[in-house]
């Protein structure tokens, strides 16, 4: 078994008095695509945000690359972040600058590459997500699906070791969605990237998932390989793989 890149111990996250994540224990392994599944509002985005420190957990510990990870230790947090890419559910592109500039930001901030090289890398990443023609447009001039892809290009700008994607294929047509899945698989194989993906698309799950985590009401209902998930007798998981709904 490959070693764990993310280790989560007894994670509890609350918004006010409302408990969203209730005692999560989970490991994510290097070089694997792990899919987080679960009904709308069950806390998938919250789990991602708790892992990357955007939401501070009420209790529990998150370790990334073997070290405790959280906004408290700022210097360590920031150096580790350079090895992590995040695709937000809404894209979260900076609206005042073009797509190409958005993708260039992490490169400008965290490398000393010269500009021509950065430009080339930016165009390569945009090409990988099929947006080379849109490089100079502003985020507001793109469609929802294009924004998603641009945000993915930014998330992979630094070739991170760990990539988080919150619903990468929501709002995309099946062909583009399949292309993105292929991109994720390529990155995994090429860079031994570990990927955590939140998605509901059954087709997409079949294509990319090495491992499945099924979340329900803040608890882990099922965790195992895709093959195990398909033959699981946990009723919710069974239902999902039979019908594609929760």
């Amino acid at each position, binding site marked *: 078994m490959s070693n764990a890149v993310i280790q989560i111990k007894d994670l509890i996250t609350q918004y006010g008095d409302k408990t969203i994540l209730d005692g999560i224990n989970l490991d994510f392994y290097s070089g694997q695509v792990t899919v987080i599944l679960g009904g709308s509002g069950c806390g998938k985005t919250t789990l991602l945000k708790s892992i*990357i420190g*955007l939401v501070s957990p009420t209790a529990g510990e998150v370790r990334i690359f073997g070290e405790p990870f959280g906004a408290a230790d700022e210097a360590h*947090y920031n150096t580790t972040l350079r090895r992590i890419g995040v695709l937000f559910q*809404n894209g*979260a*592109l900076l*609206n005042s600058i073009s797509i190409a500039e958005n993708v260039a930001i992490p490169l*400008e*901030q965290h490398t000393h590459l010269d500009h021509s090289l950065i430009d080339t890398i930016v165009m390569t990443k945009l090409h990988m997500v099929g947006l080379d023609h849109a490089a100079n447009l502003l985020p507001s001039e793109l469609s929802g699906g294009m924004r998603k892809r641009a945000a993915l290009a*930014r998330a992979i700008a630094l070739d991170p070791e760990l990539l988080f994607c919150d619903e990468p294929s929501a709002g995309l047509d099946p062909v583009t969605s399949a292309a993105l899945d292929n991109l994720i698989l390529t990155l995994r194989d090429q860079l031994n990237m570990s990927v955590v993906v939140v998605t509901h698309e059954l087709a997409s799950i079949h294509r990319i998932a090495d491992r499945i985590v099924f979340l329900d009401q803040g608890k882990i209902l099922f965790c195992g390989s895709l093959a195990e998930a398909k033959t699981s007798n946990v009723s919710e998981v069974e239902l999902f793989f039979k019908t594609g709904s929760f």
Partner: protein
Amino acid sequence: MAKKTSDHIQKPARIYYQDTQLILEGPLSNQTIPALQKQLKRMQLDIVGTIDISAVNYIDSAGVAFLEELTDRTGSTIDLLKANENGQRALETFSSRKNQKPEYLPEPGFFESIGNAVYDIKDSAINFLYLTSEVVLWSFYGIVHPGSRRKGSVIQQSYLIGSNAVGIIALLSFVLGLILALQSAAQLRQFGANIYVADLIAISMVREMGPMMTAIIIAGRSGSAFAAEISTMKVTEELDALQMMAINPISYVVVPKFLAITICMPLLVTLSMILGIMGGFVIGLTYLDLTFVSYFNETISILTAEDLLVGLSKSVFFAWVIVIIGSYFGFKAQGGAAGVGKVTTSAVVASIFAVIFLDALFSLIYMI
């Protein structure tokens, strides 16, 4: 076709009472229910056993809600056997029986709200001081390491804060000088003290009105823009994205504004002083029969370097207050577009208040 359907939904429905049975006829839709409810109010219902909906040809969700309320109130049942297939399906689809009660958080009591308010104030004060220290720290860092900023961001902000405000500040200051001079001219004239209008305008524009007027305009123009920009970035998760790229949001977003406004404010205030004095000058020449030379000499002789220093140094503090309050409210925003609107208003009100308060404080300090 569509028209026909809606016609038949809007046809009046009827309700009547017969042998412990309530009988409904016609469509039960959100259009016909109000009339039915009126009819129902006028009826005397003794015992209602069943509700017969066999003659109902259409039911929407309002119809189902109405029927359910009716059965609850009269303790009756709906005669489902007689309902047609469509009616049964509607009752199934729109039934509110399965609805879950929404969660209500208990309203805090009087003392609890006071306690919460105190905690809120404490938190706000801590956050505000924290933000201030971060802004100052990152600004110094930004001056020492210009590479840490996005290229051209200070120039871009200076353009937005400074250049774009030149016209309005010039115009308003000129008018302000005009008004001040006009108001005092009448009084000064009575004593033949015409020339002192130059002193009055020079001192008040340089020490008070110039800095204050400019600060209030900038608070309205740029303070609101800061709050709106930052809060939008917050609600669209752009700030989270910055943090994930290990970029400090304060250094990326606030510092260019901080540096730009620190440069622009004294320049704008200088402009305002000059234009204000020119406004007074126009009144002096036309209404008070002063000559250009005497007015000019009087202005120069009364103004000291200290006056100028007071005015300009004040303006820098005003500028900082505007940036920090605008940013503070921006970062505080919560919950979508409505949140953006709310913090924008608060930011303007709070920064104008702070500017005036600070000005009073400065006046006191200089008096001593």
